[in-house]
């Protein structure tokens, strides 16, 4: 699935903005349905109050462009389900008041610092936090993906406080051995939103780096699975190298073409994280007032194209050069 080698870089041939239908779909009597939606349409699939899983890991593969549109559409009361590491994708939604509850194992900016909005809201007691950890997220999603009710962890997973404060951890006795095992409840979000480097019009998606928990989230989601991607590829490109498909199209409901859709996070294999922008975000978000100004300037009222313009094409090109 991974493409680290130079020869695996996306070829320009794959990037025509308006794809013709492939030969495949020509030869059938009925047309095969495409799954491409506009960003606005895709976000409007998510009602307020939904349990939404956001893909990526930390500042890598975070669906930032989608999150900005969620804020613009004022979706509220979300129950956020995050990968083992989350960052600005969560902090932005929390700061913008879209989140009622968050199940998380880590929200932070790694070496750059703590997550300012998450801290502020957590310390004020205004956010319901379901403290989780990597095992819970991963094995909860694995159980959810298989339709299983829970996953029993190995003997000796004991002694840590997350299991004490998180109601989705519970003990079960193995009837064969009499031993008690800590179990994690299945995680089944309503909607999973993930970002990939490339995707075709039928939802066959390609991670150009690690797929983290994205596939698990898509499999575990009950209602909708939405993919945003930097580049659209033709079905024929998918069919030429099917081994590169990291999320199969048949579980995907909607595809959104969203160039630079991870900025200021990194889209693995395409562009690196924008450290300058991130540091500025952290600095401004140290106060609630500063965060409001950031929202005004970079989120509210800006289309994705206007956002890219505001960041600057030169800067985006530089991030692309350095990110691979």
């Amino acid at each position: 699935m991974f493409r680290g080698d130079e020869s695996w870089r996306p070829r320009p041939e794959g990037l025509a903005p308006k794809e013709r239908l492939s030969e495949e779909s020509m030869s059938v009597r009925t047309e095969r349905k495409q799954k491409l939606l506009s960003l606005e349409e895709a976000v409007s699939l998510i009602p307020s109050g939904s349990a939404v899983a956001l893909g990526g890991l930390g500042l890598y593969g975070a669906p930032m462009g989608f999150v900005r549109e969620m804020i613009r559409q004022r979706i509220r009361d979300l129950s956020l389900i995050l990968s083992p590491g989350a960052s600005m994708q969560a902090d932005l939604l929390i700061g913008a008041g879209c989140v009622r509850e968050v199940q998380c194992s880590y929200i932070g900016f790694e070496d750059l610092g703590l997550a300012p909005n998450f801290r502020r809201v957590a310390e004020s007691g205004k956010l319901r936090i379901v403290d989780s950890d990597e095992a819970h997220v991963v094995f909860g999603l694995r159980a959810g993906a298989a339709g299983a009710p829970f996953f029993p962890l190995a003997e000796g997973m004991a002694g840590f406080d997350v299991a004490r404060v998180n109601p989705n951890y519970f003990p079960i006795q193995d009837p064969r051995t009499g031993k008690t095992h800590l179990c994690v409840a299945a995680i089944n979000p309503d909607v999973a939103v993930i970002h990939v480097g490339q995707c075709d019009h039928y939802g066959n998606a390609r991670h150009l780096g690690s797929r983290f928990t994205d596939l698990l989230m898509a499999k575990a989601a009950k209602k909708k699975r939405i993919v945003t991607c930097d580049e659209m590829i033709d079905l024929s490109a998918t069919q030429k190298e099917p081994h590169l498909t990291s999320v199969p199209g048949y579980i995907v409901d909607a595809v959104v073409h969203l160039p630079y859709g991870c900025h200021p996070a990194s889209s693995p294999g395409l562009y690196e994280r924008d450290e300058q922008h991130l540091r500025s975000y952290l600095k401004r978000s140290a106060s609630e007032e500063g965060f409001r100004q950031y929202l005004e300037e970079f989120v509210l009222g800006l289309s994705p194209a206007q956002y890219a313009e505001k960041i600057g094409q030169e800067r985006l090109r530089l991030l692309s050069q350095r990110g691979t």
Partner: protein
Amino acid sequence: MGESESYTIPELITVCLSRHMEDGLLAIVGTASYEPAIACRLAQMTHAPNLTWLFGGIGAANPKLKPMPPSTADVRGMRGAESAVGIDEIDDYELAGKVDLFFAGGIQIDRYGNLNLVCVGDYDRPRLRGPGSVGLPFLSRVKKIFIFTRAHNRRTFVEKVDFVSGVGYLDGPGSRDRLGLKEDEGPALVVTNLAVMDFDPGSKRMRLKSLHPGVSLEKVVENTGFDLLQTSNLSTTPPPSDEELRFIREEIDTEGILRRIA
């Protein structure tokens, strides 16, 4: 002495971690861990060619770094690696008890090597909300833990952690056994900006092992919020050798992260 006179604290932490790694282990490096990642690579180049280490976020085995990317989730960490597995596969190895060595830090660390990444103060209304426990609960299933931090002070080194994100020796001797964990596994080493510590096998308490060059015993005591055990043979941490610094600067951390974050 030459260039070894001018090293940074992160570089010193790195060589301390590296020197304590035995050959043949399976080690995992997680979130925000520059020093451990570079230390693993350094250990392979100096004395532990059979050490296997995994770059946590992308699951890359034995990457060459050169340079060190800003995160273990960065795809550039694949350079020269031997394999890459999903984060869920990594977790299989951790849960199945196959991981020998794990590197971890905390916003709080106590005398028994328990680690906290969640909160300072009351859990429901914390004075400081940390990022969260991430992979620290796996410490229950890991044979050996190396603790590292650049913040050796009384806020970090506390009498008792307010939240156990990752288990150390919990309340002392017998605690691990009561939970079904092995008594002789757990925290083994603590490397900070001031000193190197280990744990007394009997009392399970943290014990001063060596002071970094130029650091006084008083300074360490002042900056530790609990009574550190002391040994009769307290030494000075040997500074990075020329060869270690050369490997770090020319073969691994070629963009100088360990010099920048100092």
